[in-house]
C-alpha cells in the first residue's frame, strides 16, 4: 500500500513544492496524479523513494516510513521514470541483472530475464543488445521489466508514457493493467488525461503542491475529466 499523510516539502529556496498531501493507494488500484509541470507530482514520488527529505508529514510504503526507514520502505516499491535511464554500454540482460541484484534477487538466470523481457514485449534480438541503441519505448519496457522482477507490491511511475508513440503507449497501458491484475498498488503521475481516465481507479489533480481534486472511476463515469482538469487549472 502507498500512503501519504500530510506530506509536505519546502525546498531550500523557499518553494513549497508539496503542501499537506494525503493519499492512499490500495493493492490492485491505479492512482493517476494529474497536474501541470511543477505541480508537485515528481516531488511526491521523490519523497516515497527518499530521494529528498520531507519537511513534514509521512510517506509510507507498506506501512514503512520512507524517511525513517528508507531502505526497508524501498523494498516494497519499484520505480519507473519518464525516461528510464539505463547503462547504455550494458545489454538489456546486463541491465536487468544489475537492477535485479540491487533489488535483492540474486538467483535469477538468463532464462528468467528472457522470460520477463518477452512478457513486456521486447523483441528477442534486443535481449543481448546494448541499451544505447534502444528506442524510448524499448527502454520503458525494460524499465517495467526491472520493476516486475523486483516483485515489489507497489509501483511508482513518473510520467512513464510521456513521449511514447501511440502503439508503445497502448502496450505500456496493457502492461499496467496486467500488473494491477496481479494486485500491485500503482501510483502514476501523468499529463495524459485520456490515458488517466482509461486506466485509473482514482484520479488526483495537483496544483502548486496541493491535491485539489480526487475522484474515483465511478465519480468520473459521468464527467468529462478533460474539462474538469482544465477547470481546476484555470481556478487561481
Amino acid at each position, binding site marked *: 500500500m502507498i500512503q501519504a499523510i500530510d506530506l509536505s516539502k519546502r525546498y531550500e529556496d523557499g518553494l513549497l513544492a508539496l503542501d499537506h498531501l494525503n493519499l492512499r493507494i490500495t493493492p490492485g488500484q491505479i492512482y493517476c496524479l494529474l497536474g501541470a509541470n511543477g505541480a508537485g507530482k515528481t516531488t511526491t514520488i521523490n519523497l516515497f*523513494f527518499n530521494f529528498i527529505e520531507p519537511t513534514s508529514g509521512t510517506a509510507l510504503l507498506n506501512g514503512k516510513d520512507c524517511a525513517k526507514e*528508507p531502505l526497508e520502505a524501498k523494498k516494497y516499491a519499484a*520505480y519507473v*521514470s519518464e525516461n528510464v535511464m*539505463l547503462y547504455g*554500454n*550494458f545489454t538489456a540482460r546486463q541491465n536487468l541483472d544489475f537492477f535485479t541484484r540491487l533489488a*535483492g534477487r540474486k538467483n535469477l538466470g538468463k532464462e528468467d530475464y528472457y522470460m520477463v523481457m518477452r512478457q513486456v514485449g521486447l523483441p528477442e534480438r534486443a535481449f543481448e543488445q546494448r541499451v544505447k541503441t534502444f528506442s524510448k519505448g524499448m527502454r520503458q519496457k525494460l524499465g517495467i521489466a526491472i520493476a516486475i522482477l523486483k516483485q515489489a507490491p507497489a509501483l511508482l511511475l513518473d510520467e512513464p508514457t510521456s513521449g511514447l508513440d501511440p502503439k508503445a503507449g497502448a502496450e505500456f497501458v496493457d502492461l499496467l493493467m496486467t500488473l494491477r491484475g496481479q494486485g500491485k498498488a500503482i501510483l502514476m503521475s501523468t499529463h495524459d488525461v485520456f490515458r488517466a481516465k482509461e486506466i485509473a481507479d482514482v484520479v488526483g489533480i495537483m496544483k502548486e503542491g496541493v491535491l485539489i481534486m480526487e475522484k474515483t472511476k465511478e465519480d468520473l463515469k459521468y464527467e468529462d475529466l478533460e474539462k474538469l482538469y482544465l477547470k481546476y487549472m484555470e481556478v487561481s
Partner: protein
Amino acid sequence: MLRTVFRKELLEHLVSYRFPLFLVICLALVPTSVYVNYIDYAKRISDHNEQVRLANSELSASRMWEIHMGTIPIKGFRPPSPLSVFATGFESSLPRYYEFLAGGFKAGETSIGDESILSVAGRFDFLFIVQTILSLMVLLLASDLVSGEKELGTLRGVLSNSVPRHTLLVGKLLGGFTSVWLPFAIAFLLSVIVLAVTSFPLSDPAIALRVIALLVAASVFMFTYLTLGLMVSAGTSRARTSLVTILLVWILLQLVIPKACDMVASVLYPIRTETVVSMQKSLVARTLDEEKAKVLGNEYVAIFGMGAKFTTDLPPGPSLDRWNAFKSETDRAYRERKAAQLGQIDDAYGNERRTQRSIAGNLSLISPGAAFTRLVTDLCGTGEIDKARYVEAVRIHQQTLDEALYSHVSKTTLILPGGGSGSSSSIDKFVDLQSLPAFSFRIASLGEAFVGNLGSLISIVFWLIAPFAVSYVRFLRYDVR
C-alpha cells in the same frame, strides 16, 4: 550489495572504451620507460666501473708525495642506484664523484650535462608516468563516477532500490579503482619481467622489496587521486563541470603547488647563496692563514734574530727545538681555530638551508603528487634522503682522509716582520694508500626511507581519507532531483 555495485562498476569500465585505452597507455608507457631507463642505467654502471678503474690506475701511477700533498686528488665514486630505472630523481644532478684534497673536498662532474633542457624539466620515468600521466587519467576517469550517473539519471534508478548510499559510493570507488589498477598492474608486471630478463639485480631481496614497495606506493597514489576525483564528482551535478573542476584541481596539486613551494620558501625565509658562503669561508681562511704566518714570522725573528732568513735547513739545537715546538703548537691552534670558524659558517649555512628546505618540503606536502615524488625517489635511492647521505658520506670520508693521510703533511708559511716571507712543506709519515678506507656510500634502507618520509605518508593518507570523507558527507546529503 557492495559486490553488486562493485561488479557493475567494474563491468561498466571494462566494456567502455576507457579500459582498453588505459591498458594501451599503461602498456605503452610503463615498460618502455623502465626499459629505456634500464639501458641508461647499464651505461652509467659501465661508465662508473670504468671511471673507478681509471681513477685507481691514475692513483697508482702518481707519486706518493703528490698524493700526500694533495696535488693529486683521491676520488670517491657514487655507484648509480639500480632503482633509478624507476625514478631518476637526483641521479643525474648529483656529482658522479667527489675529489678529496688536503684542503677539503670538491664535487666532480654530474651527468646532467649530457641531457637536454627538456629532460631537466622531468625525466620520462615510472615516477613521471604515474605522478603526471596516470594521475590525470585516473582523475578524468573519476570525473563522472557520480556526476555522470546524476546527469544520466541512472542514479535515481539505482537509489530507488534498498542500496545504502555509502555502499554505492564505496562500490563505485572500488570498482573504479580496480578498473584502473588492473591495466597499471599488468604494465608494471610486464616492466618487472623486462627487468628480469636483463642483468638488473632483481634477485637481490632488498631491490625486489623496493620494487614491491613502489607498486604499493603507486597503487595508493592512484587510489588517492581516484578519491579526489570522486569528491569532485560527488559535489557536482554535471560531468562537464566535474571535468573542468578536476582539471583545475590537478593543475593546482600537480603543477602549481610543487613548483611554487621552493619560491614561497625562499621568499618567506631568504638565505645567502652558496657563492657568498664560499667567499666568506675563503676570506676567513685567508685571514687566519695570514695571521698565523705573521705570528710564526714574529716568533722566527724572536728566536733566530732580526736578520735571519727563513730556511728549513736549521742547525740542531735549543733554538730549533723551541721553533719546532712553537710551530707545532701554532699549527695546532690555528688549525683548530680555522676548523671552528669554518665549521661555524658551514653549520649556520646548513641550518639556514635546512630551515628553508623544511619550509619548502612541508609546503609541498599539500600536494599528494609532491609527497609521492619524495616517497618514490627515496625508495629508489635517488631522493633527498640519499642526496643528504651522499654529502654526509663525503664529509666523513674527508675527515677520515684528513686524520689518516693529510694530517701527516705540515705546511708552513711565515711573514717576517721586516718584510719577506717563506714557506715549507714536510711529510712526517708516508701512509700506505692501500690501508686507507675506500669511499663508501649506501642508499638509505627501506625502513629509513619510510621513516624519512613520514610527512609524505601522512600527506598521502590524508588525501586518501579526506576527499572520501567529503564525498561521503556530500553524497549522503545529496537530494536526488
